[in-house]
């Protein structure tokens, strides 16, 4: 194990340079998120991930955010185990009818102020599963959404630039 640890000293750091905040995301947030909440939550956000019916593809890429290449925690963003500790709910999947209540209860268990980020095409509008008897629709059909990150699934860089928009101050929003 010592050898492996020493190698890290001589090798190049794997972590990618941070992408810039996504313009579309900044626009969506500027319209939705109020400055007071932004000030209270500050630049360190605790994220609670909720799978409301996804195929698990989005979860795999959200997991990747924590690997050495993307290293989400360097931005002050971290995943937490309970909605009670969270500032941000990150929701994936078309919301299935069987998850409808659980998502609502998770939302209600998250203290205010809070933001909701819907990840993936399914979370946007139900995606390819829209119209099924078992699907309620996109996340906004059940709880208010502040930011959508599209993709099937969005790759880690797309997730990162969407999330970084949450950290931008309102004055930095596009004119």
């Amino acid at each position, binding site marked *: *194990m010592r050898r492996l640890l020493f190698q890290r000293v001589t090798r190049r750091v794997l972590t990618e340079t941070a992408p810039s905040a996504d313009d579309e995301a900044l626009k969506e947030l500027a319209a939705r998120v109020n400055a007071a909440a932004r000030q209270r939550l500050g630049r360190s956000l605790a994220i609670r991930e909720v799978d409301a019916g996804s195929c698990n593809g989005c979860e795999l890429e959200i997991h990747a955010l924590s690997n050495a290449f993307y290293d989400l925690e360097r931005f002050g963003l971290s995943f937490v185990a309970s909605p009670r500790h969270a500032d941000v709910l990150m929701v994936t999947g078309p919301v299935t009818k069987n998850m409808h209540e659980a998502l609502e209860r998770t939302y209600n268990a998250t203290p205010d102020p809070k933001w909701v980020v819907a990840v993936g095409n399914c979370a946007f509008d139900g995606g390819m599963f829209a119209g099924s008897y078992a699907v309620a629709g996109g996340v906004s059909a059940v709880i208010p959404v502040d930011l959508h990150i599209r993709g099937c699934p969005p790759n880690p860089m797309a997730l990162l630039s969407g999330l970084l928009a949450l950290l931008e101050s309102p004055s930095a929003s596009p004119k």
Partner: protein
Amino acid sequence: MLGALIAKGQRVADHQPWPRAIVTADVWRDAVGGLADGALSLFGLWGDEGTVHLCLLDESADPNAIGVLSLPCPDGVFPSVGVSHPPAIRLERTIFDLFGLVPSDAPDARPWLDHGRWGESHHGDGARAPYRFLPVDGEDLHQIPVGPVHAGIIEPGHFRFTASGETVARLEQRLGYVHKGIESLMTGASLERAATLACHTSGDSAVAYGIAFARAVEAALGITPPPRAVYLRALMAELERIANHLGDFGAICNDASFTILHAHCGVLRERTLRAASAAFGHRLMMDCIAPGGVAADIRADGSEAVRAAAGEIRRLLPALTEIYDNTASLQNRTLTTGVLQPALARRFAAGGFIGRASGRNFDTRRNLAYPPYDALSFAVPVVEPGDVDARVDIRVREIEQSLSLVDQLLANLPGGQFRANVPLRGGEGMALAEGFRGDVLVWVRLGTDGTIARCHLRDPSWFQWPLLEAVVESNIIADFPLCNKSFNCSYSGHDL
């Protein structure tokens, strides 16, 4: 035994490549007897309009044989399989939930996927009633409800633990939270849309589902994909297997709070996904497989990217397994934890690393070999202990085998077309593909216009989830995450 059962029924003419026969209730009962005494293995059980289908695997035949028995149920009732063969119980509950067909004498009539939220239910008002968990009696027992929203970044499901102090007396699962109605969305869908839905049945097995669906359609239509496509599919399948096994290896160690292996496995997994993206244009290779072949040829620098990633994994993996093997605190957590008895693995026909870590020597790439695996050389690692450590061990050995397969596939990649023409006509077909988790089964009936009349997708998790309940018994609660991660069953693939 399977051949005799099929012979007693009325053969369906256009079902490919394995036989399907319409049988009477008596033959059905004989088949259930065969399952109960271990002569046959349950491979699938699903509903249709007024019919139930039972897919059987005969492992005593050489090569292994598969067949489907179909029982028409004009009065909506069929003899229960689960009453004498428990692996069928959840499948039967699903058949009632989705089709309203009643398994007579079934041991468990509770709803399974139906949580009473769909607006209509075969259970009537009963589906909305609080779910009745199995009673557990005894002194000093307490219950711990977990989920559906879990603490980690994982899929939703509910686990009801009954514990005596730290020790688990019983775990009961309740699944169905991510039921999206995939099979109903497929009915009437074009081949293209159905292939996309199949790829998104379980996101970590997009390739396995893609292959199984495409091969089932090709069997139904009697067409053969070009050799180049067959090799490219296998290349994707092995990359998917490597990426998932690496992820699991790291995540299991992480659940024992041993994060260094998680970090290093995460790097290797990322390299694999980047190579997949460079070669096929999508990190998880979703929608890269289509009936008739593959959606697009491998990109110009794709082979080089895959070779580079494979070389990196081959170079670094031994150091990681060495740390795993020589860290006593980690071994203390994984050895003798969550033991799956070989007899139980056999009874449930547990596929994938779960079966192979408990002595079940079965891999569809070999036992029911499909191209190109019949022309490639690889070993199927099998060990006996059945604990968390054994399931890690099998994963590592399978990564090594997959790396060798990647080499062989790239070295012998045939030239020519990557997609054959797909005619629009009717037919019935079924196919299997060995995903990282085990055997994915897809059964499809095409209408005469080439759209989907009925498609059934059976995830290997159906036969693995119940075993997780069995292995955590008598383990401590704190070891449940390790047991669970070492199984890594699919929620979405199971809930459909």
